[in-house]
């Protein structure tokens, strides 16, 4: 009870961090925009045309998209960890992002050939299908292998297969769009505008609500299937929704930003440490915020470290995320 204030404090800090990082994202970049310009842009809707384009049309939507997609990844990872009772499960490591990537690449290449522009719904739909296929495969594997670590290995293998096929597609796709496709298949938040932000919000917000409504069943499921079922949980239905929501969340990310590594593992883990509890009702919103902070920070670094060139987002997230995984392994002394 005494750490209730502490937990509220943590939520406040995560909120503030998100806001601060969005603000910093507006300011920092390869083009130097004076601070007073940004303030006047935000407050008075005025300002110089070029600055306005850079800040309001490029940096602002990109930051918001990074925040929402980061939150989605963290949440997706959290759900997968709950599903497999495995702390290093995540959409990237289990090959689910790569499955989505492959499906999206396929749709893009096919539609480029026919000079069509696939809509957002098509992109997300394809990503969702790809994610579900990978997920289905991982679930099948989980029935064959009984070791957590082996499950992760088979997920990584699925990821490699999907990436290889995607590379193949990208290499053989003709067109000037290849460059674009190539960037996307490496993972990047660049080029996301307001129309993307709107669509992302429309997908992610309901999904977030759905996950939040599942916080009670998730807490029962933590005890294992037998106890969860004895508590009255409908396991089949619960698992179905868990798979659908986590696939949808990671599919949305992949459709817009390509595969982004490690956020799904690192963010929930860091947030759990920070909160000092694993109660789903607190973890779910905190994970979302934590993922947002994590991705905003990584995107800032991706944009600025080698400016004006950009690093792929996965390069940066891996730099922070992979050590987090190693830390979890060491802490658990390899017990899986």
């Amino acid at each position, binding site marked *: 009870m005494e750490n209730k204030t502490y937990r509220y404090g943590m939520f406040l800090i995560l909120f503030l961090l998100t806001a601060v990082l969005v603000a910093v994202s507006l300011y920092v970049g390869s083009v130097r925009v004076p601070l007073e310009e940004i303030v006047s842009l935000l407050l008075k809707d005025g300002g110089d045309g070029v600055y306005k384009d850079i800040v309001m049309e490029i940096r602002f939507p990109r930051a918001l998209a990074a925040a929402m997609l980061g939150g989605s990844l963290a949440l997706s990872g959290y759900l997968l960890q709950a599903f497999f*009772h495995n*702390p290093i499960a995540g959409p990237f490591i289990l090959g689910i992002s790569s499955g989505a990537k492959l499906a999206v690449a396929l749709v893009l290449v096919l539609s480029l050939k026919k000079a069509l522009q696939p809509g957002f719904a098509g992109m997300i739909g394809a990503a969702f299908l790809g994610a579900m296929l990978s997920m289905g495969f991982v679930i099948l594997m989980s029935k064959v292998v009984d070791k957590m670590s082996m499950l992760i290995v088979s997920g990584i293998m699925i990821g490699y297969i999907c990436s290889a096929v995607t590379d193949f597609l990208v290499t053989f796709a003709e067109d000037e769009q290849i460059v674009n496709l190539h960037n996307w298949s490496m993972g990047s938040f660049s080029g996301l505008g307001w129309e993307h932000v709107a669509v992302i919000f429309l997908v992610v917000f309901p999904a977030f609500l759905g996950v939040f*409504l599942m*916080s*009670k069943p998730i*807490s*029962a499921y*933590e*005890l*294992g299937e*037998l*106890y969860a*079922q*004895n*508590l*009255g*949980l*409908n396991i089949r239905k619960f698992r179905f929704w868990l798979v659908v929501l986590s696939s949808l969340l990671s599919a949305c990310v992949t459709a817009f930003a390509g595969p982004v590594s490690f956020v799904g593992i690192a963010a929930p883990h860091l947030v*759990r440490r920070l909160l*000092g*509890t*694993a*109660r789903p*009702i607190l973890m779910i919103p905190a994970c979302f915020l934590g993922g947002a902070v994590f991705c905003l920070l990584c995107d800032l670094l991706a944009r600025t470290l080698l400016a004006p060139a950009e690093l792929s987002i996965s390069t940066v997230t891996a730099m922070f995320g992979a050590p987090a995984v190693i830390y979890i392994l060491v802490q658990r002394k390899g017990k899986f």
Partner: protein
Amino acid sequence: MGEEFYFYTKTLSVGYHGVPLVENIEIGLKKGQILTLIGPNGAGKTTILQSIIRQLEPLKGAVFLDGKELGRISAGELARRISVVFTERIRPEMMSCRQVVETGRYPYTGRFGILSDRDHRVVRESMELVKVSEIAEEAFEKISDGQRQRVMLARALSQEPELIVLDEPTSFLDIRHKLEFLSVLQRLSREKGLSVVLSLHELDLAERISDRIACIRGDRIDRTGTPEEIFTPGYIRELYGIVAGDYDERTGTAELPKQEGAPQVFVIGGNGTGTPVYRRLQRQGIPFTTGILWENDLDYPAARLLAAEVVGERAFCRVRTEAIRRAKELMKGCREVICTLKAETGGDFYPELLELIEYARANCVFH
């Protein structure tokens, strides 16, 4: 099985993937009773327990709770009536013992699982009942196996069940906690009318705690009944197919196999002084004979299972001369006689035993 039972099964067959493991199960218990399943490893105790909590679909037949078939009871209602403690090890992350116990309130809370004052009270009382209140705030992963098992019982109790199903709940407990654990179950069944179905490996404990026992053997329930009806001489050996050693139903003790070969030692024992010597000789691989023991002597059960031959006498009867003759004969064949009785001091000692001791002193290597 009729209506007088609170919980019973009717021609129940259980198993996995349509393959029956145990068939035609008819067990039942009244409110406030304790029913124990015993039987060899792999006999299907856990499978039966999983089927009566609807974790597994029965292959045939049905389970009835309070006159209603289990399949007709909603998941939520069932959760408020039956709770479980299974051997499946749970690994909840960053949960205190209290939080684990709180999960038992799941069937009673709303959409977000927020606990009411009443929920908190039930959780507190459940923890007090099994004496885990003092570790309430400790991390569940950090406590000992014994404590963990008690926390799981508190969790099951906080579900406020009418029937509690436990799969080998005492397996990882030391003797103190085994007794404590079972006495809590006994108290709850007597005082609160809680019905209990459990499986046990410890036959001595099963005999003591159970109102009814069901023995699983092969593909069927071999016997059901009160402990008196179950533990008849020789039955446990038969039920478990014991080939090495034996089990004494009257005292609830097990002994390792007796040593084969020509007896080398004769033990004059009695009143419990012989048993440790019998066991030592068994460990050292020395075949022995012993006597004279009345059938109601404390040493008799162990002697019967361990000695090559026991010179026995019927309970409360005078020693017959043939017994003395036989004992002397056996002593002669041995290289050594061990006497564990302190006979010299007592004046009212059975003269036949004194005679044996004198004989041994005169004719054998005597200790």
